[in-house]
């Protein structure tokens, strides 16, 4: 009788304690997962981690004019920008530009995203494709487009003049305003994409429920729609902020040399003055700015989610 039982239940034989089969399977599974991750890890290592480490290492070298780099370990490249009010202003301008562009871009993209998230039209995917179609042309081309529209003889100024609203052309290019206008439009597809993924909790029945409980259209928006879409709004803002403080094409072209942000400074130091350690140090400062905003973002989303 005992023998029969043992034969019927091989899992209880010596060496196979209860659960050991599951453990062995879990070990095999872990090995499979690790193997599948290796290509991605290798790719990131080569294309991201190593260059970043190299950049950080570079920022501690001493750089001189004409591209002479003296290997060593010095804080020269950090002391210089941190002690120079010009670089403080550049950093502040960069941050401010990111915030302004982020806020305006999200505000303009919000109604579009809300419409796209809510519509039950059969053209929904087509409409979404149209909303993000600007991504098909490069930012350079779109920036040139804005230069033509915003220039002294551009569409905006000539229209306003023709209407007799202004006598002299408004200065809409070669300054921060022009850069911000350009960045807002260029970032909108990203804002829409980032936000629409965060609008998942929106459900027409929730708005109907609020209405049936006595909320006006405005109250439905402030008490239900907006709070439910806030995670998406934050993600959209973060996306636009990060993109706009790191881009140098639009500030360079629409700024016409008179707009200095960290990205344009880094570009100038790298390709113009060939002071790589200094450019590297500015890049690290930009990275810290990113990090700070991401940390705030994470705290906020955690609060909203919890």
């Amino acid at each position, binding site marked *: 009788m005992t023998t029969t039982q043992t034969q019927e239940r091989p899992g209880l034989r010596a060496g196979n304690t209860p659960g050991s089969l599951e453990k062995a399977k879990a070990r095999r599974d872990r090995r499979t997962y690790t193997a599948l991750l290796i290509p991605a890890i290798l790719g990131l290592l080569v294309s991201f981690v190593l260059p970043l480490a190299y950049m950080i290492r570079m920022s501690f070298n001493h750089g001189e004019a004409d591209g002479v780099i003296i290997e060593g370990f010095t804080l020269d490249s950090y002391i210089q920008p941190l002690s120079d009010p010009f670089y403080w202003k550049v950093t502040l301008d960069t941050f401010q530009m990111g915030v302004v562009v982020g806020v305006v871009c999200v505000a303009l993209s919000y109604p579009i995203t809300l419409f796209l998230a809510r519509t039950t039209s059969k053209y929904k995917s087509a409409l979404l494709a149209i909303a993000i179609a600007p991504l098909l042309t490069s930012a350079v081309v779109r920036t040139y487009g804005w230069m033509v529209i915003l220039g002294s003889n551009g569409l905006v100024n000539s229209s306003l003049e023709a209407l007799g609203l202004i006598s002299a052309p408004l200065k809409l290019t070669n300054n921060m305003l022009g850069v911000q206008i350009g960045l807002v439009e260029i970032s909108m597809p990203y804002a829409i994409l980032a936000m629409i993924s965060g609008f998942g*909790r929106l*459900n027409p*029945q*929730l708005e*109907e*429920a*609020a*209405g*049936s*409980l*006595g*909320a*006006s259209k405005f*109250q439905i928006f402030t*008490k*239900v729609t907006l*709070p*439910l879409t806030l995670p998406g709004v934050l993600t959209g803002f973060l996306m636009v902020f990060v993109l706009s403080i790191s881009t140098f094409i639009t500030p360079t072209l629409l700024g016409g040399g008179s707009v200095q942000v960290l990205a344009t400074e880094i570009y100038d130091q790298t390709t113009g003055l060939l002071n790589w350690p200094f450019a590297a140090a500015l890049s690290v400062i930009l990275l810290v700015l990113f990090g700070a905003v991401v940390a705030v973002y994470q705290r906020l989303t955690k609060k*909203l989610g919890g």
Partner: protein
Amino acid sequence: MNQSKLSIVDLTKRYAPGLDPAVDKLSMEVEEGHLVALLGPSGCGKTTTLRMVAGLMDPTAGSIIVDGRDITQTPVNKRGMGMVFQSYALFPHMDVAQNVAFGLQMRRVPPAEQSRRVAAALDMVKLGHLAKRKVRELSGGQQQRIALARALVVEPTLLLLDEPLSNLDAKLRETMRSEIRSIQQRTRATTLFVTHDQDEALDMADRIAVMNGGLIEQYDSPSVIYERPNTRFVADFIGQANFLTASVVADNGPTASGGATAGGASERNYTVDVDGLGRYGATGHPGFVGSTRELVVRPHRLRVSLEARGGEAGIAGTIVGVSYTGDTVGFSVRVGERTLQAQFMTSSAAVPRPGDSAYLSWNPSDAYLLPGNPEVAAA
């Protein structure tokens, strides 16, 4: 609690011109404190009707009147109704107490009174201890009760329930059924309840409106709907039914029970000729002699005997199927071209087998001539 009377007059909804209306000139009255079920298959217009009453959808024509006041043009947030949605629609960014307080907040009820009424509403659904919970930490049954509390705390003119039990598992559904019913009876809130589940409607409602194709087929109490269906659709949708074609041969006078028809005239006993299978008794509205109508008999009202007894032979048939479920046993009996269903409580007696002969008969009061359907051509 407010008790309001709801009248719906010629309510029509056409989603697009040229399309058949989803709700077609529907009229009905709901008495104060009643729970009325709108019952029908999907697409019959029951949810559309409810949404128009709630103000979530504009009617194409007709009017909705609450306590004598026409509210057809009143926006949803001014109607003062409480609605429970199929998905419950609890606000995920608020806790339980905030959800329940929402309607009071919108009505600018003072905070002290708000918290008192929220606590009372949560106690009513027995979930006072969950006030600070997040919505997503609740089970389906708990969410459903919170949704009910949220709708009732504002003391609505009408309570509207849109398939409130369809997302619960079978066991919980039964519990919530009686709970909703008892809360409704305590608050005496006039309630309109949409469901596709006949058991739910029979169990909970004071009156049932059976809907089909945008029209009300019958609006009556559950027992009348079951015992005296107006049309073949109602008889078929509520419970199980056997349909036979019967030519009415003779009027045998008013029924002993004196059951009254909708028109006020009392029901008559008739002798009918069933598909040439013999003459049997049946019940129906007055004035049916000489017409051919559909006759409905519920499976458990059919008598089945295995041998012909005395004068009451019954319709002879052959048992072709037996389904034994413990409590009941069902027979499929083949009679000529058609198969009839019969059902009984089981007893210790031997269960007949397929192939056995059987004789079917019924009490005249259990065979009902459908008044709502047009006469059928004699077979």
